[in-house]
């Protein structure tokens, strides 16, 4: 891997400014400081990737998609990957390994377009040690073969990270089962059923039209035997899941839908054998295989999974794969599973603490937002107890673990009962509630008609009994729910509303109480305004001049901290050259511009740096926005020039757009509650939004949230929990429907039933309405299939059923239900999308004011 030569990094003076952003990633370029070959880049990282690809003849990357690159936010030190050379870790990660080649499948969440697929599959051009690489786009995975003697695994990870595809390696990945063979089996089952269905149908056609008399009675026999032969693998192999499910439900003493289905299947096959053996006719194998084929298709349709989303993540999915352990002779990278109590570990900026621990040395600023939802970082002194799940922000700290990973604070949350019970069995679905009565009714009618015929004409009794079971086989019934749910699931996925499985729709339709988390769910750190307040220690100084703003913007550009990014965005000014730039992680940044020293950072850091309050030299006593009358929510960044405080930037944690409207809509129909890990400083604001009836609770721990949901459920409420982050994980799991709100699909989200793109949160009310309609469609589908059954069963009970009646009635009833389910759901869904477009335009309008608020800055700068 070659580095770009230093000459290339110089700013050529003749390059034109690109109006449409960075050539690599498409983000806005603040100026021309990074450009190469007439192309502008937003940062050094993007430019490096471009030159790397350019040198290796991979420019096609930029032709496949415009600006396909991923911005390298913070360059990762190669040392970060050192633990990947640990044989224990490798053993678990590698799919295959020998001395000359290794195959590994890595999860690369950054994969997002055609160009990514192409680039990763051409990875071998970047390094001679890499062989074949194969991307699975829907899983966001790349299977890479490499030669371990030419490139170490850690170097491969570093190579991927350097072009923007940082592999996601978590503790949970070690235990994850590889691709399941189940999908293969269900394809084979459908294939076999379809094959048998088609061929039996072909041979049955003459019977349908009464043409079999031309070929004589031997043809009837041949066709019958062939039909039985074809149907055998279908009944035993393709329908094996139905038999298993029926056996399971009988053992559980519940009558699920599979019971009447298998009863029907068995009756059809038995009747067919009887007819063929007694030379009465060709049997019902055409209807039998067709039925199984349709059922399997319906099941496949419903089983839509989203490979890139993980619904069953526990804390292990959030933990890193390894930590740095301090030993007698230095530091070593150790897999978390091998971490023992009493180990001394070293945490750097941004790293997660995997086990409860005691702080030994270093300045700890722990961000527990992941666990508690509280957004402020906590400063800890040496000796204090740190909880697992906290993220260190700032310098390097050394801690000693006091509990094993599996017994730490975060892990204990997962030991709660809510996580152990599996809720995914569908015993309580609409279909199964219906099938209980249905099965009893069918068996009753069959017995009654048999008894009736015994007295009238004993020879017809058995035929009538089996005929009723055959006709009543609830194929259409069994298709109503899967097709409605499958269609609904696809429609919702287009609205960025991803369901774990189709049954979630039914549970959503029953929800009567909605519990919302505050931080990260209703509020967001990204959309808020940035407001500057000049210094307020008694003396009010002047507003920032354009020159001063330019200085601050130029300094802030150099940091990737979210606060710096937001400040830069609010000050769209040309960047100036910065000298002596220094970042103290978690605290602040400083640098010199034209001999003036500029500092940006936290209050504590400012005080430590000896920043004074005004030019008169008063003792520094910095206080921020707490003084102002209306309490603001968010964080403050202080700015100082030449060691004198100029003021602070207030970064507001604002509500997501349209939250107020959404709450008003939901309030009409559902009971509402708000749970927050934060303190009560915002209670008044949310009281206004939620109105009097809603329950607002603050200072809630993850366990409190779980218990609150549990209490509601004991009072008979069907609860939907809407949250984000690990602090809501217990509540999400306990609720009948857990909705995880994520900023970016495919990135961290706790275990849940629904994963929702944060931008689509205002749609929640409409989605719930849609799910209630879907439940109505399923019920109507039941009625339609029941109507067909009444006709069929009357014919059967009269002893008049023939293969042709069966072959017409069954497909017709199935097709009616399929058409109704899909059609009605799609129609309801179309209405949903029309509304969505209107909402999208009104969201744009509601965003307008915040764009205006930045206008004054923009105007002065031009």
């Amino acid at each position, binding site marked *: 891997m070659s580095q770009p030569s230093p000459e290339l990094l110089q700013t050529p003076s003749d390059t034109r400014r690109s109006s449409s952003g960075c050539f690599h990633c498409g983000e806005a370029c603040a100026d021309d400081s990074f450009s190469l070959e007439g192309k502008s880049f937003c940062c050094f990282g993007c430019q490096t990737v471009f030159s790397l690809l350019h040198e290796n003849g991979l420019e096609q990357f930029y032709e496949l998609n415009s600006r396909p690159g991923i911005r390298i936010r913070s360059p990762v030190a190669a040392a970060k990957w050192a633990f990947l050379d640990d044989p224990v870790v490798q053993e678990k990660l590698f799919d295959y390994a020998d001395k000359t080649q290794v195959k590994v499948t890595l999860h690369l969440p950054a994969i997002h377009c055609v160009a990514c697929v192409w680039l990763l599959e051409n990875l071998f051009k970047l390094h001679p040690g890499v062989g*074949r690489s194969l991307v699975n786009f829907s899983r966001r995975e790349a299977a890479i073969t490499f030669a371990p003697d030419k490139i170490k695994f850690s170097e491969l990870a570093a190579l991927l990270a350097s072009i923007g595809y940082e592999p996601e390696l978590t503790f949970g990945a070690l235990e994850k089962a590889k691709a399941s063979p189940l999908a293969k089996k269900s394809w084979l089952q459908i294939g076999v059923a379809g094959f048998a269905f088609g061929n039996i149908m072909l041979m049955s056609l003459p019977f349908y039209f009464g043409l079999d008399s031309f070929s004589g009675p031997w043809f009837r026999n041949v066709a019958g035997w062939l039909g039985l032969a074809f149907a055998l693998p279908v009944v035993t192999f393709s329908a094996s899941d139905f038999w298993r499910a029926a056996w399971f439900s009988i053992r559980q003493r519940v009558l699920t839908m599979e019971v009447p289905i298998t009863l029907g299947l068995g009756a059809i096959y038995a009747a067919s054998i009887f007819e063929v053996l007694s030379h009465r006719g060709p049997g019902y194998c055409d209807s039998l295989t067709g039925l199984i084929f349709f059922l399997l298709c319906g099941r496949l349709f419903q089983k839509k999974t989203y490979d890139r989303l993980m619904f069953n993540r526990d804390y292990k999915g959030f933990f890193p794969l390894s930590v740095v352990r301090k030993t007698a002779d230095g530091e070593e990278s150790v897999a978390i599973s091998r971490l023992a109590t009493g180990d001394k570990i070293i945490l750097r900026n941004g790293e997660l603490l995997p086990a409860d621990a005691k702080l030994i040395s270093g300045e700890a600023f722990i961000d527990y937002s992941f666990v508690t939802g509280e957004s402020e970082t906590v400063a800890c002194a040496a000796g204090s107890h740190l909880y697992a799940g906290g993220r260190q922000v700032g310098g390097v700290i050394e801690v000693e673990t006091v509990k094993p990973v599996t017994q730490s604070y975060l892990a204990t949350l997962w030991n709660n009962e809510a996580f152990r019970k599996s809720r995914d069995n569908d015993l309580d679905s609409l279909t199964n509630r219906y099938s209980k009565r249905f099965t009893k009714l069918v068996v009753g009618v069959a017995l009654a008609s048999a008894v009736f015929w015994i007295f009238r004409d004993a020879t017809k009794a058995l035929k009538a009994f089996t005929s009723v079971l055959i006709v009543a086989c609830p194929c259409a019934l069994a298709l109503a729910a899967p097709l409605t749910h499958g269609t609904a699931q696809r429609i919702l996925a287009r609205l960025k509303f991803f369901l774990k499985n189709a049954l979630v729709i039914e549970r959503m339709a029953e929800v009567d109480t909605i519990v919302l988390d505050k931080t990260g769910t209703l509020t967001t750190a990204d959309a808020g305004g940035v407001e500057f307040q000049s210094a307020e220690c008694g003396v009010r100084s002047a507003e920032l001049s354009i020159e001063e703003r330019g200085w601050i913007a130029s300094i802030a550009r150099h940091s990737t901290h979210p606060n710096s990014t937001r400040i830069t965005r609010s000050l769209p000014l040309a960047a100036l050259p910065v000298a002596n730039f220094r970042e103290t992680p978690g605290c602040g940044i400083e640098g010199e511009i034209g001999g003036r020293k500029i500092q940006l950072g936290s209050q504590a850091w400012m005080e430590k740096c000896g920043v004074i309050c005004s030019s008169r030299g008063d003792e520094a006593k910095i206080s921020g926005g707490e003084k102002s009358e209306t309490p603001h929510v968010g964080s403050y960044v202080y700015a100082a020039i030449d060691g004198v405080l100029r003021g602070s930037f207030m970064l507001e944690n604002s509500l997501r757009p349209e939250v107020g409207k959404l709450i008003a809509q939901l309030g009409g129909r559902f009971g509402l509650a708000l749970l927050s890990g934060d303190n009560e400083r915002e209670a008044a604001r949310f009281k206004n939004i939620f109105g009097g009836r809603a329950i607002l609770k603050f200072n809630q721990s993850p366990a409190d949230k779980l218990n609150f949901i549990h209490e509601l459920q004991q009072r008979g409420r069907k609860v939907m929990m809407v949250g984000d982050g690990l602090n809501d994980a217990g509540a999400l799991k306990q609720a009948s429907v857990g909705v995880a709100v994520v900023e970016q699909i495919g990135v961290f989200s706790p275990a849940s039933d629904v994963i929702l793109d944060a931008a689509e949160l205002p749609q929640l009310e409409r989605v719930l309405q849609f799910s209630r309609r879907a439940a109505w469609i399923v019920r109507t589908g039941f009625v339609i299939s029941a109507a067909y059954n009444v006709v069929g069963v009357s014919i059967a009970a009269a002893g008049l059923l023939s293969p042709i009646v069966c072959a017409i009635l069954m497909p017709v009833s199935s097709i009616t239900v399929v058409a109704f389910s899909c059609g009605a759901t799609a129609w309801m869904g179309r209405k949903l999308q029309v509304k969505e477009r209107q909402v999208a335009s009104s969201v744009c309008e509601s965003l307008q004011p915040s764009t205006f608020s930045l206008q004054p800055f923009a105007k002065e700068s031009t």
Partner: protein
Amino acid sequence: MSVIIILILASLTVALLFLTGFIWAVRNGQYEDTLTPSMRVLADETTEKICETKSKLK
């Protein structure tokens, strides 16, 4: 009417061939990822890539 026996045998042979093909395709993993190949085809594959990949795997 014995010609129908030949017809049935012929149609069965063809149908079984297709079924075998399908089973082979599923076992071979062709149904595991149905999305990526449709994206892969958009990029021009150079002969150089095929040769290099082959030589590396040896």
